[in-house]
């Protein structure tokens, strides 16, 4: 059943096995990871046993017949990279959505890792104006960090806002299972901000087959590497939504009869996600890839395999939560963490930043305890009451995502709140900072 067409292209027309996501056939001389077109749909080799080759069909196998034409491409999936990418949106296969051609050099996606000794330690602060991020969880170029959010939270809006304020040379949007509305929203905001020429999008919407999503992050990161390595640009990659990406991984692995791990995710989920997230990097020549991702949670459960593995891979997480006391979405200071913040806070920002940040969060924790007490019907001490008042104002003035101020102003605001509600020894920061920055309006 084999005939040679173009050089390297082999064509077969007899399928041996069909499942919802894969087909198998007898074929020879096929390379692992190689691409093929099955009945016009893109597919990739995922298993070879003797002459039995199993292909994963990105668009699903609906309607594929046993005599479907299979053409092997003799290479792994590729993307054409070049300056031509800027300002355009592509589908999961790297084809321009609005048609047309791309001029550029063909690159295999999912390429090798950066040698760790060729990396530079991230050290550039990315201010966003959002105090819940800048004050408590400062971001740094070369970092990878997801928003952990329930599906009803405005994570895509926050992400777009952060992206525009981040002063990146390129913003690469990797949309996986994006609703069409959100896709158009992104396009719109970037357009309105006059930033469209800095944007590259790789988009899989809910209208597209889910398995196609598996190509999206690799496409986006291949483009990111082009701009960061060859053009020394600061690239920001937005990955939304990685939970939907993981769902696609589980579809494929379950179809291939792999033993599922926790939450029916593949046992290799950690490695699969790490391979993508570790593409975040600061290069010595100034180029960098920063990743901001979204991991949607179900019912705030972070022990689910996807957020759990993500938390173990990324450099922190930004936890969005609605604060019912102030009726706004805040960046939760307890569950959020930027692990690279210590590389910049107190260094690129004012010296007392770390201490102020920690003190405020500690006092906020005291308020949380007081709140539990209150809910259990106990009397509150004077300190409890003060901490509750502090917490409310802290939430409103600093944690809410609609805050947009400079970092120094965030610190000043914190001292203002401290001195309104507490004595210096209750706040517990270094004496030298108290002497220098404490607001003597009270106490």
């Amino acid at each position, binding site marked *: 059943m084999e005939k040679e067409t173009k050089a390297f292209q082999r064509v077969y027309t007899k399928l041996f096995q069909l499942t919802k996501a894969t087909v198998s056939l007898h074929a020879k001389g096929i390379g692992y990871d190689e691409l093929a077109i099955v009945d016009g749909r893109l597919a990739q080799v995922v298993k070879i046993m*003797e002459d039995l080759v199993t292909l994963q069909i990105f668009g699903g196998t609906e309607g594929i017949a046993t005599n479907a034409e299979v053409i092997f491409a003799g290479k792994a999936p590729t993307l054409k990279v070049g300056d031509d990418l800027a300002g355009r949106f592509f589908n999961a296969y790297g084809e321009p959505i609005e048609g047309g051609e791309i001029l550029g050099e063909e690159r295999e996606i999912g390429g090798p890792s950066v*040698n760790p*000794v060729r990396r530079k330690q991230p050290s550039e602060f990315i201010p966003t104006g959002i105090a819940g991020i800048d004050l408590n969880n400062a971001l740094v170029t070369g970092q990878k960090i997801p928003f952990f959010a329930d599906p009803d939270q405005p994570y895509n809006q926050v992400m777009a806002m952060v992206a525009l304020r981040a002063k990146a040379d390129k913003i690469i949007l990797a949309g996986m299972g994006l609703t069409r509305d959100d896709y158009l929203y992104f396009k719109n905001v970037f357009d309105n901000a006059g930033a469209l020429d800095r944007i590259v999008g790789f988009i899989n919407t809910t209208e597209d087959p889910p398995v196609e999503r598996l190509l999206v992050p690799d496409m986006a990161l291949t483009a990111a590497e082009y701009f960061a390595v060859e053009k020394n640009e600061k690239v920001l990659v937005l990955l939304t939504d990685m939970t939907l990406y993981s769902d696609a991984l589980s579809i494929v692995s379950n179809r291939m009869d792999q033993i599922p791990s926790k939450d029916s995710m593949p046992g290799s989920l950690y490695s699969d996600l790490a391979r993508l997230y570790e593409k*975040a990097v600061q290069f010595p020549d100034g180029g960098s890839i920063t990743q901001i991702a979204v991991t949607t949670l179900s019912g705030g459960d972070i022990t689910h395999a996807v957020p759990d593995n993500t*938390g173990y891979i990324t450099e922190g997480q930004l936890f969005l939560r609605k604060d019912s006391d102030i009726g706004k979405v805040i960046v939760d200071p307890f569950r959020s963490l930027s692990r690279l913040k210590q590389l910049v806070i107190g260094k690129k920002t004012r010296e007392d930043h770390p201490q102020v940040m920690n003190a405020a969060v500690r006092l906020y924790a005291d308020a949380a305890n007081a709140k539990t007490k209150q809910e259990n019907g106990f009397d509150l001490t004077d300190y409890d009451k003060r901490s509750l008042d502090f917490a409310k104002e802290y939430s409103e003035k600093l944690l809410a995502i609609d805050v947009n101020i400079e970092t120094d102003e965030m610190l000043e605001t914190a001292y203002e709140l401290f001195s309104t509600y507490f004595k210096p020894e209750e706040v517990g920061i270094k004496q030298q900072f108290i002497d220098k920055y404490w607001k003597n309006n009270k106490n």
Partner: protein
Amino acid sequence: MNTIGNVTGIIANLVIVETQGTTAQNEICYIKHGDTRLMAEVIKVVGNKSYIQVFESTRGVKVGTEVEFMGHMLEVTLGPGILSKNFDGLQNDLHKMEGVFLKRGEYTHPLEMEQKYDFKALAKKDDKVVAGSWLGEVKENWIPHKIMVPFTFKGEYTVKSINKDGEYTPEETIAVLTDREGKDHEVTMTQKWPVKVPIKAYKDKPRPFKILETGIRVMDTLNPIAEGGTGFIPGPFGSGKTVLQHNLSKNAEADLVIIAACGERANEVVEIFTEFPELDDPRSGRKLMERTTIIANTSNMPVAAREASVYTAMTIAEYYRAMGLKVLLLADSTSRWAQALREMSNRMEELPGPDGFPMDLSAIIANFYARAGYVYLPNGESGSITFIGTVSPAGGNLKEPVTESTKKVARCFYALSQARADSKRYPAIDPIDSYSKYLEYPEIVEYLNKTIHENWTDNVFKAKDILLRGKESYEQINILGDDGVPIDYHVRYWKSELIDFAILQQDAFDAIDASSSLERQNYMLQKTLEVADMDFEFESFEDVGPYFKRIINALKQMNFSDYESDEFKQNEKEFRNILKEQETAGKEEEVTAEEKAS
């Protein structure tokens, strides 16, 4: 002649090879893929089929591709030049690799074969020697690097000749040894050793009897680890495992630190590359990097090499231990290694154990931890490997196979608590759940009381008791309400908070607080216990917290100042003054009582 085979199947990095000749479990082989050779290890043999795990991406590999089996297991090269290097999990020198990106099939030499080392003979002609005996030494950084009789040598040998002191490259013969049968063997400065086999070139392995000072109060004071001991740090993501290990690698009182970054973030090793060459070793005054070796197999590097990386690190540690050095071995995270085993076991469709991990996971972990230890060498000297691994339990739930298997073998348990991390009480080691079995060793107790203070261990147990009673009081207060309990409950709770804030919590990023000497730990422990021993009188429960917060603040300021500096003393005075308020308050009452009586 090496055995040759051909690829017959590929599933990700599991490749099946049909061979004619012999192959062995754990044998190394190379897949000839185009111009590159991809390294792999045999993990199962069935009939003429060898199942190999490939240490690289298998992209493009085809059925029929030739595979060459090398006749040896995965080995490391041991010799001067290891120290301060950054290796990958297979001991390739990462600095020697070209380009920004790692290239598949590029393998680099771990040592500097051209470099000459200044050799000084330690053995002389006609000496009787065994595997591990010191023949001579060279300077490696500041360490007197011993050139030893290769560990593969069996039985006794006689030194036939040994080179004069002078400069030699690692491959030059430096001695000739004659075995019992009269056969001569040339010895160079380098040797090879299979990583999965423990190096046993020691005479005896006693129970650990000293502690390894780490500078971290919650460890040293509350749950010390023995020199040559084992410990592990389980904790959910973000609870501080890596920060704690980095802090250990900076401050622990070891001659050498070997860090296996196993399946974790690249930026974390970059942090070490960047900071360690600048940071001073608080003990030797040299740069930290001079005593550190990194085995970096980060999460985006080939999965199969994760397993290799921890063994590579352990073997290098054993090599230096045989030189009589005090080695600290850290692995972050052993869970990633276990996951790599799981991925492979699943691909081979083996019968899975709990959570899909291989059935023999416990045995694998136990064998690995057993390689640590304090040893007496053939010449009577001693050396040690203290091993501390992190564990990353899925969902933060400690009832999972890797945590449970590790708990069976590691003697120190440093459980990081999410609640403590959330409230930024760092390091987030849970003071109540964690333990050190070494505190049950009479020889350790005796050592501690002799070296730190005669009452040291009594004080430590007292502090533990206060923490426990503080927790109980806290629970009672939560159940019954602030005014539903006697004021005494509040005092008890705050006494435990004092220990928490002044001893347990430690700022890893503060230049002074990051590390605390045992002397200083003793001093501070005594301060907190002094408060714990005092009786306090408060009008109302509302006065307890604010008062204790002032004491805490004073003690914290002491922690932030140089030991015994003016600032330190100033803060101590402040501490005294606060305590005096209560003493005088008590006295005034006494006086009035007396006056009344008279």
